[in-house]
Each structure stands twice: as C-alpha cells, then as structure tokens.
C-alpha cells in the first residue's frame, strides 16, 4: 500500500465561506438541490447524495444562554481506518484504495442502503436517481493524478489541508500547541489518533471545543464490533429453542427418541 493520504481540517482557520462546498459540487458534477433553511448560514442540515462537503455552523452558548462562540467547520467523509460502511457493504462495492481512502464503486453498488445506516457519522447518502449509495471519495480521480481534492484546493485559508497522513499529523499537533499558547484551552484534535476510535480517521479535525459542540460523537464505535457478541447470544437462544423442541416432542412413555 502506498502512504496513507489524509485531509486535515483546521476549524480555527475556517471562515465559513463554503468555497469547499462549491468546489466539491463543481468537480464532482453534483446536481443542484433545493435549499434547506436551518436557521443559520448552514445550507442542508446534513450530508446529502449531492453534497459531499458541508460547512456546519454552530452557536455555542454559556450557561445563561448567552452566545459564547460561533463555530464553523467544514465537514466531510472521515475515510475511517475501520469503516462501518465498508464492513457493512454486502457487495464489496465499498473498498479501500491503495491510499487508505474509502470509495464506493458505482458500478457494483446495488442500492441496499445498509452502508447508509452503518456510518457512525451519517455521511453515506442514497442517491435516488442512480439507485446507489454515494459519498466523498477525496476526489479519487484528482488524487490519482496528483491534484489533491477540489475542496482543499479551493480553501482560501488553508483550513483544509491535504497530504500524507503522517506529515499532516505532525503539523496538526504543532498547531494545537500554538493554539494552546494563544489561549484556546479547549483546542484538540479529533480522529488523529491511530489507536483511538475507528483506528483513526483519514479526515481528521482540529476542534476549538469538545466534539459534542460540533455534533460529533465523542467515541464513535464500529458497528460491526457487535457481530460476534450478538451472534453468540443468538446461538445461545437457538440452543434453548432446540432443547425446547426436544422436550416438547420427546415421548415420555419410552417410545421414540430423546
């Protein structure tokens, strides 16, 4: 495998211009959508089948309900090292590329939508026009030609950076220290730790507050971790049912089996 490619989104540099969102739509030729008003500048409350990049806006309030800080964050598919969508996919349409990113092969996907409900971040969306599941590919066609994803290219503040994961991780840690010195006590990385949840995210973030401020789960869990224990409990109940059948149909007068 080639070196893992990653995207580092530094929330402290985001100005909420949504150039990334537009660049993503243009390059990936995603159809226009009806606007959905959310009460803030955020358009579309969630990722859709036609919005792979989404700038989220959050108003953090203090205990008295007074506005404390206005957060903006450009959100994207995390390309998890342990990806719920990829594990769920029954067709093998979702695969890991040589760069460690997660892609959906549109020629294989049959639209079962299991991946949609298996993503811990609600990224994968079902496209009713094509009948398939879609999501950000890190601009697979661009990165295989050395161009970098359209969103990172368009970002005017370098809030979105793209490169080799190990290089970006070093830069990200330096940036957190800088911010700590500047007084941003809650600045922290999300998804950078390879030993952390989901084996690390290949799109990781620098947040200025707790993940919950940004609507992100504190400890996302790979849903397929449940398969073994759920199956064992099922086998246990199957044994009980078998025992019950044996008891019910056994001949108590000595004739027959059991």
């Amino acid at each position, binding site marked *: 495998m080639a070196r893992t490619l990653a995207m580092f989104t530094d929330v402290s540099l985001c100005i909420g211009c949504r150039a990334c969102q537009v660049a993503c739509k243009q390059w990936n030729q995603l159809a226009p959508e009806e606007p959905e008003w959310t009460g803030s500048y955020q358009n579309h*409350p*969630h990722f859709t089948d036609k919005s792979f990049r989404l700038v989220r806006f959050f108003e953090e309030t203090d205990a008295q309900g007074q506005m404390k800080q206005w957060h903006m964050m450009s959100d994207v598919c995390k390309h998890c090292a*342990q990806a719920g969508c*990829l*594990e*769920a*996919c*029954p*067709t*093998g*349409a*979702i*695969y890991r590329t040589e760069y460690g990113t997660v892609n959906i092969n549109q020629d*294989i*996907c*049959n*639209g*079962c*939508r*299991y991946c*949609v*409900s*298996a*993503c*811990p971040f*609600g990224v*994968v969306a*079902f*496209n*009713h026009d094509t*009948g398939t*599941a879609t999501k950000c590919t890190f601009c697979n066609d661009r990165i295989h030609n050395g161009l970098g994803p359209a969103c990172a290219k368009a970002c005017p503040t370098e809030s979105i950076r793209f490169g080799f994961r190990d290089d970006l991780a070093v830069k990200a840690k330096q940036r957190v220290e800088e911010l700590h010195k500047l007084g941003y006590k809650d600045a922290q990385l999300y998804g950078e730790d390879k030993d952390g949840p989901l084996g690390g995210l290949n799109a990781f973030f620098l947040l200025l507050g707790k993940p919950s401020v940004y609507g*992100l*789960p504190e400890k996302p*869990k790979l*849903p*397929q971790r449940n*398969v073994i*224990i*759920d*199956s064992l*409990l*099922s086998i*246990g*109940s*199957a044994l*009980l*049912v*078998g025992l*019950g*059948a*044996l*008891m*019910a*149909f*056994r*001949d108590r007068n000595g*004739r*027959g*089996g059991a």
Partner: protein
Amino acid sequence: MEPGLLKSADWPLLIDLYFFLGGLAGGAFVIATSANLLDAYRYRHIVRAGYYIAFLAILPGPLFLIVDLGRPTRFLHMLMVSKPSAEIGMNAITIGPFHLKFFSPMNAGAWALLGFSLFAFLAALDVFLEHRGGRSMSALRIIAGVIGGFFGCFIAAYPGVLLGATARPLFISAHWLGALFLVVGASTGGAAIALILSLLGAQARESLSRLMRFTVFALVLQLAALLFFIVTVQMAGSAGIGRALAQLLSGPYGLTFWLGAVVVGIVAPLVLQFTGGARKAAPGMTALVSALILMGGFLVKYVIIAAGQAT
C-alpha cells in the same frame, strides 16, 4: 450520539415482512426437523405442515429483497461480482467472483438465504412426494432437515444481528436483537403450524398439544429476550440512545409496542393457554392463540425496526 447526525436506510415495510416470513420459515423448519427426528410417523402432520410452511414462507423473500434494491438487476452482486476489489473488509473471503464477508450480516444472510432455500425446497419436495403416495427418501429428508435446520436458525436470527451492526442508536448497543428475532421465528413458526393443524381438525390433536407446549415455551423465551433487549439498551446510557428507547416505549411507537407486541403477541396468548383449561385443546382456541402469536410476532419486529429507523 447527536440526534439527527446519523442517517437511516429507511427500509420499507417489505423488508419487515421478509424478516417476519424468514423467521417464521426458519422456525417452522426447525420444528419440523425436530419432530421428524424424534418420531416421523406420529408427528407426520407437524412435519408435513412445517416443511410446506417453511418453503412457502421463504419463497417470496428473495423477491421482496430484490424489489427493494436501488438497482434490482444487480441483486447477484450480494454474492458475486466479476472483478472483486482487493480490500473489501475484515475477514472477507474472495474466491473467484464470489465473496463472503463474515462481518457483513447482509452478505452472510444472502448466502444463508440461498442455502436455506435449497434445503427448504428439498424437504418440502420429499414430504410432497410422500404425500402423493410415493416413498419418502427418509435419509435425504434427515440430511436436508438437519443442514437446513442450521440455515433456518441463521435465517431467523441474522436480521437482528444485521440491525445490531448499524450505527442507529436503538440498535448499536442492543446485542439481543438476533436472539429476539430467533425466538420470534420459533414462536411464529410454531403458531403457523398450529394454525394449519387446528384447521385440519381432530386427527392431529396429540401432535397439536405438544406443538403448543413448544410454542408457549418459545413465547416465554420471546418475553425474556424482549426484556433483555430493553434493559441492555437502557443500560447503554447515552442521551441519544435513551431518546431512541423512549420513542419505542412511550413515544409514537409506544402503543404498537405495548398493545401489539407485548399484550396481543405475548401476554394474551400465554394467559389464554394457561387459563383455558379444557377449552384450550379446542381447535378454535388454538387457532385464536396462534393468530395472536403471528400478529404479535410481526408487530414486535415491525415496531422495533420502525422506531430504530426513525430515531
């Protein structure tokens, strides 16, 4: 987990119906196999009805699943693609064009559906030939019954495990859904056979009372599994999971859950069966109890899936 961040597959009623019929088929098949192994002649009515029901109930399953796909013509991709990708998940096995993913219950379930359908067909064919006055190939029936019985358990349980392997708040910490779906399969499978036998009348009375003994036992397991499911989800603790559980127990799905899944599906049949006295052996009463169990078995799966997909 933040509400609204997650997405839902929004599987329609057709999928619930498949989960219900698949469970019923698996349950009926396992009951028929048990009865066949213990006394094939005495329980011939159960064996015949059970294998027929299993075959007929699983028959529309693949159709329901294929119709629901975004690209129905690609249904075979569940099992095979012409050029599989290199990395398609942990413990995935690729042989030629075929792939098996142990950690994708939908993929494993598709294979199991193929296997179960084959053995359900063979078993039903054997009882059919015997019924037509031919001779049963009893060895074939035993082999198909035993192997198909394992597939039957898998078919009944895997939808629960499949739901448990999603990020939906109601499901991700549940753990007991596979076990619950399996015992619902057993109770509804038993009820379906009992319904047919009670309509056939007196000739199968002794078989019927034994079958009801099993069905009641499965119903008690169903109550226990449902309880374990709720307690496990409750103990998971996070706010999002608590909200999802509240939707099921007291929100818009509360009435269907308590009245449909618990009262109609479990409590009423148990009360009728335990307090019925002499009347409980009457075919009419058995038919009523069976119908209640079948309704409740569908509703418990339906309401859990609906609440889990909505929140």
